[in-house]
């Protein structure tokens, strides 16, 4: 081999090394599927980022269920000829909102696709597409039953197949607070294995194993069908995530439902210690009705929401002091829903009920209401609904929170004594 050829070989070798180094640097951090359209990137410092179209994406969202006055949750708004998502999408975009969370798609795939397309193409709004996983099926969700599991699997996989190529899909979200059926006393279900166990604590552990194993089966199959979108576990608080760690390791992120008042407390660090996955606050917020003074209080709602969003931003990737495992949130909710308080009485769907359904001391302004019930389910909207119609829809009236958050999202102020986080 001549000297010249040796030198050329060395140059080729060095160039190859350089190229390899470049590739390594590009892939710095742990990215499970960097070719995917949407994926989660684990940074070197252990923080997480949601990457969408090669760019970090902060979920600035709201839960979306635009039920008109006088209707209830069975109303098929996807097929509403007045297209509520068009009016809402415009307002959302003006506010700075980039994501909505939907609990489950409608029955008509064409209608669903049209909504996804309209929101994405007109306003750039993406959708976290959820599935209830049969949580509200009568008499209870039989997660220990193979037939029930197969039925849910079929529904979920069909959903993924149908919408995976829609550009507006952000990620999939499985369940909502279904973990409470295993570990709390909500919609509890029997199974042969559970019924044989007399110890209530062990019964809970069995249910949790069954449920989270089922979640993992769903997740693995969704990853096969659609490698382009992550899969989230919808979970009430952090309850049961110690089980999820063992039985649902394929989950990409958790989507938690958290109502802790002004902030989320130690949530982000607790999650890191329990089940090291990124989190989207899938449901949080505050209502705009003061149950104690018996009047609407938009400021109270705005106060809580601004504070909650501040903490979400403090825990995004590369934050100074935060856990760095937060990807954003979808607050509850975009519009008021007038059917919720007395849901079995159609007459009450036409009235904006002021009765509170549950109590939460963290929302302290009106906790002295009768029986300490201060959470008004019909008043959580960032926009309220008017009985006056506009283009066939109940007119949308943005509440104070709309403007306060619009301002916050444009200039997030974290007051952490160092430089502010850019959008």
């Amino acid at each position, binding site marked *: 081999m001549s000297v010249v050829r040796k030198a050329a070989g060395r140059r080729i070798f060095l160039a190859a090394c350089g190229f390899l180094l470049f590739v390594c640097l590009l892939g710095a951090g742990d990215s499970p599927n960097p070719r995917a359209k949407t994926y989660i990137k684990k940074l070197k410092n252990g923080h997480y980022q949601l990457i969408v179209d090669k760019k970090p994406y902060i979920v600035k969202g709201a839960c979306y269920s635009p039920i008109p006055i006088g209707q209830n949750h069975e109303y098929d708004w996807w097929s509403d000829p007045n297209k509520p998502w068009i009016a809402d999408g415009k307002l959302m975009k003006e506010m700075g909102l980039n994501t909505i969370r939907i609990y489950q798609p409608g029955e008509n795939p064409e209608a669903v696709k049209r909504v996804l397309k309209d929101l994405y193409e007109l306003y750039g709004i993406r959708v976290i597409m959820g599935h209830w996983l049969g949580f509200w099926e009568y008499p209870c969700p039989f997660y220990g039953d193979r037939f029930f599991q197969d039925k849910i699997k079929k529904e979920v996989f069909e959903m993924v197949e149908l919408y995976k190529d829609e550009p507006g899909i952000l990620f999939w979200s499985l369940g909502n607070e279904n973990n409470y059926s295993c570990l709390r*006393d909500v919609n509890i279900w029997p199974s042969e294995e559970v019924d044989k166990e007399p110890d209530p604590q062990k019964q809970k552990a069995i249910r949790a194993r069954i449920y989270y194993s089922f979640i993992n089966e769903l997740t693995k199959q969704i990853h096969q069908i659609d490698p382009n979108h992550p899969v989230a576990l919808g979970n009430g608080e952090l*309850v049961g995530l110690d089980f999820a760690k063992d039985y649902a390791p394929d989950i990409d992120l958790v989507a938690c439902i958290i109502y802790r008042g002004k902030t*989320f407390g130690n949530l982000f660090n607790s999650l890191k210690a329990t089940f090291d996955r990124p989190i989207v606050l899938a449901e949080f917020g505050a209502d705009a009705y003061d149950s104690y003074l018996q009047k609407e209080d938009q400021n109270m709602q705005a106060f809580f929401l601004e504070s909650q969003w501040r903490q979400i931003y403090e825990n995004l990737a590369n934050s100074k002091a935060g856990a760095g495992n937060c990807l954003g949130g979808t607050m509850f909710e975009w519009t008021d829903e007038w059917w919720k308080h007395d849901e079995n009485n159609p007459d009450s769907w036409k009235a904006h009920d002021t009765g509170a*359904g549950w109590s939460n001391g963290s929302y302290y302004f009106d906790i002295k209401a009768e029986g300490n019930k201060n959470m008004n389910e019909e008043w959580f909207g960032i926009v309220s609904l008017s009985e006056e119609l506009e283009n066939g829809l109940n007119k949308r009236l943005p509440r104070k929170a709309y403007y306060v958050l619009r301002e916050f999202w444009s200039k997030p102020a974290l007051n*952490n*004594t160092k430089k502010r986080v850019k959008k």
Partner: protein
Amino acid sequence: MRALKISLIFIFAIASALYAQDENKLADLSRQIIEAKTSAEFYGPFEELKEEYFSRSAIQSEGGIPQDAGKDNKYSDFIDFLKSLSAKKDIAGPFINYYIALTRYNQLKSLEEKQLWDEYFSKGNDYRDELARLSQKAIDATMADDALNIYSRLLLWQFHKDQQDSSSEGALQGLMNSLLEYSKAANDVKLIKEAADKLYSYAEKGKAKELYKIYVDKIISSEIKDEALLVSASGFYKEGNLDLSETLYDVYIDRLAKSGGKEKLLPVLKELAKDFSYKDQGFNDPAYAEKLFKRMEEDAGSDVFDEELMYMRAFNLEKSKEYPKAKEAYLDLLKRYPGAQYADEANFKAAVIYTYILRDIKNARPIFEALAQKEGIPPQALSSLYQLGLVSQWENDFVKAKEYYNKLLEKAGASFAQTTAMVKERLKEIEESRPMEYNLRVFLDLSLKEENKEFDMTKIALSASPYESNKEKTVNITSTVYTTTSGCMEIQLQYLWSEDLGAKQPIPLALPAFDTTYADKGTKIIGLVVVSPSGVVDRSMVMVDVN
């Protein structure tokens, strides 16, 4: 009209005089700051300035001079004033920064409390930013042995803690590190206590205790005299700072044990045990009281306890829910003082604890029987007859049950209307061959059957207020069930109340608490079973004494 005019002129003159006086005071304080040579000279005038400035606003308002207090301008005005000082005195910078930050902190609190939302939303972020930035500047400009450094760190931590944000942990660590440094050098330990109090009030009890310990060590090493130590301990007790008070009392007790011997020590222990024992009103710490009782016993034997003290110890144990120990204490009292003033109550409570806590009817029965034989109509005799009847009815020995119930009715005659009403209800159940009232039956099943041992009263906190009441006085019964959160899907719990519920009957299933009154004297038993959709959560019981 003329009189009114004169009055107005007079008020205005007084207000003007006060205002002028205050202006002079402010000018004087400003001059002190400007003329100060060392940072130590700043503390007094700045603190006085703050007090002066804010009290001045109050005087203005009371004096009738128009003031837009609703907008809380006093905060911004004070900050402007501080900033004007900053231009005149460079080295006062850290103080000025700290006081501006402190003012912003109070301003934000005030805006939230008064719900002055317009300013809160439009300026809140700027205020927060200024607060965080300037307190950090004050920290950066001072060393840990400087009190201003500690005050600034305390403020910054409080701010982050209030917001529950991610910086609060780091701020707390910084504060603790600085406090440890400060405590090594400083002679003035008041600041350490001040910081400990603040941490305690924010439920940072572990850290607060660390600081209290440093504070106490400092006090002790300063060779404080016994008398002064006692005054300090008593002062903290009166403040409600029981942890600190107990720590100082412990030091005092140890000193006394070494120097004065038992003769001096025992009366002190006795008085302290009384102070800390359970009582319906005032500060108390039953666990500390029991520690003192134990020490008395160890140092001087059980003979040192008189009747009153023995009863107090048993009652204290009962109220701290140390039931087996309480039972032993009641029995000890009876052994030593069979004719004690509280003998009936002690006997009855010992039997109740045997029955409902220890599931030991065998040992309870002879006590109830003995009480039931008592002459006259002492309330505990009637209650014992009722309990004997109840247990017999639960055991399906209806003949025996009727016997006890009838004896009770005979003994009570026209008195004890609430007790006799319960008995008549039980007798009706037997006569009509009906099962016992559901709530009561469930409570007895869970409390008496050995197989239900898992329901050990640990998942429900049941309490009465007051525990010692009088006839026809309101008693509040409250239960808290230890369940974890379930978001907006609240678990529907059912509360099965039973036994002596007084005038308030029946109690709705959904009620975790209720107010009632008792018409009869005696020891009342309140039973509770809590049921969730997945089954029984737990059961519990308390006793209320009606005098």
